[in-house]
């Protein structure tokens, strides 16, 4: 072989270091004292590691409240997306009423509509309903998911037909077939998809930015930006400390379910 395995590993290790460096630098800065942050030296591990930035992050913005907001929104959106896309995919794949193809195409096409194109009317709608700075306003518009319906329809279609027929012969109605047969048989796919939904919503920035201006109703990625250009310049230490805390849930969900997450991305990427 022309390229030895050792060289391949060396190249990959370098690539990994380059890729994770920004995250390492984030943690490194979070642990540095203000003096060291502005020393202009290249030190990955701080000379005097301190947790003071984490303390500052917790007190300068309502960190726990932001964390809680993000969690409430992410969990609610995930649950609503899982349920609504399960119901729709069940109809498209198994109940198959006339017109389902058009409906399915319209669901999937939403993936292709840029957010910037719909954000103004959506903002106006939520404002008119007086839902700015509310959980409802944060959550409901984010529930739309063409991706979830697309993935689950495929999953449900791959179920053996005999499974559903057996349920119908046993006298189960469509609701019972869904919850007693279809959902249990596809729980791995559903769980993987839910992890994706969670990561996605947790990371969401634009919609929360538009609809929550109240300090106490912001989500983490939006509320965190308050450290940027506070009077007297950006508070880099606390900003990096907040960032370090904010990435934990998404990274944790990813590491726990990484195999499923990567596989879901692959099947999403190779949809045709």
């Amino acid at each position, binding site marked *: *072989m*022309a*390229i030895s*395995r050792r060289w*391949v*590993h060396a190249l*990959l290790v370098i*690539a*990994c270091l380059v*890729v994770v460096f920004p*995250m390492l*630098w984030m943690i490194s*800065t979070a642990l540095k004292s203000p003096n060291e942050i502005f020393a*202009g030296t290249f030190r990955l591990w701080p000379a005097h590691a301190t947790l003071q930035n984490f303390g500052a992050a917790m007190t300068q913005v309502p960190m726990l409240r932001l964390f809680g907001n993000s969690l409430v929104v992410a969990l609610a959106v995930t649950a609503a997306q899982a*349920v609504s896309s399960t*119901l*729709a995919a069940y109809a498209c794949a198994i*109940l*198959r*009423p006339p017109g389902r193809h058009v409906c399915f195409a319209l*669901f999937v096409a*939403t993936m*292709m*509509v*840029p957010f*910037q*194109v*719909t*954000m*103004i*009317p*959506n903002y106006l709608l939520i404002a008119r309903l007086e839902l700015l700075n509310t959980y409802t306003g944060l959550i409901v518009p984010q*529930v*739309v998911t*063409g991706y979830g*319906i697309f993935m689950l329809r495929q999953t449900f279609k791959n179920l053996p037909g005999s499974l559903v027929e057996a349920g119908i012969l046993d006298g189960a109605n*469509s609701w019972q077939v869904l919850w007693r047969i279809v959902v249990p048989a596809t729980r791995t796919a559903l769980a993987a998809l839910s992890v994706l939904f969670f990561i996605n919503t947790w*990371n*969401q*920035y*634009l919609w929360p930015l538009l609809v929550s201006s109240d300090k106490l109703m912001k989500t983490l*990625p939006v509320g*965190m930006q308050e450290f*940027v250009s506070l009077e007297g310049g*950006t508070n880099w230490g606390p*900003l*990096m400390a907040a*960032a370090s805390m904010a*990435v934990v849930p*998404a*990274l944790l969900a*990813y*590491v726990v379910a*990484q195999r499923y997450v*990567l596989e879901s*991305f*692959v099947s999403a*990427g*190779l949809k*045709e």
Partner: protein
Amino acid sequence: VSLAAPAGSGSAALAAASARARVRLRRRWRAAILGYLYLAPAAALTAVFVYWPLIASAILSFYDWNLVSADRLAVGWQNYRDLLHSRAFRLSLVNTGEAAVALTALTVVAPLFLAVLVLKVAPRWRNVYRVILFSPTVISMAIACAIWLWMFHPLYGVLNTALRLVGVQGPAWLSSSDWAIWSIVLVTVWKTFGFNFVVYTAGLLAIPAELYQAARVDGASDGQLFRYITVPLLAPTTLFVLLTTFILGPQNLFIPTQILTQGGPNEASNNVGYLVYQLGFEYFRVGYASAAATLIFLVFLALTAVQFLLAERRIHYGG
């Protein structure tokens, strides 16, 4: 449903047949309505938050409205005319195009290279590398931007600190009209290359191993294997990656632009998506912003149509 009864049968048989047909029809209707009930939640959400806004945006684009005043002024095509004559819109279009090309080039070459490398190592290690290389993709773009905002700091940022160590005076990155847009592209590549990397890994795994073995028996070098087997057999994946990155990639520029440069300095790093936000939520010119949004959507629709046509051809020729 055909109600034709065999000739000579009694009217009783006819009535029974038609009753059966009616029952069947009713049952089918009931099944269909049941199906629609399951579709209803997702359909309602999609209609209210995606399709209605598309229409509403087109309607708003013919008005002059500042988001708060009670009356809107109908202005016909004026917003579109203004837009096509505005320097900001033209610059953002050019920037978006340039950034799309750069994004596409970078997020095709680097992920392919990494995917090839990752598949050369044992599966145990492969997974470790894959998880690490994909990690930026799962963190929030807003948080990624906060990190890079710090790294780009002209005096204390790690990039210029490192450059100083090797005796180079780094640029001002975000406040330099030459560098700002490329800084945004850099962040976007870092944050999103993982998708294409994973897609390429899957595409490579789908190439039958026997092809490589046979070629190796014939004495082919690694370079030849790549040139004559990997590249041609990966062509469909590459086409998919190229098209999706070119069309969807520019949408990823929005958050970095909002957090890192706000389109500045002097529109140098603006793009069409951010321009809509700026016009609507910073200048409160809702009609004008909606005109821009509607134009973007039409361009986007056209690009997507082209993508479908190309994908169609690919299926015919790719076999």
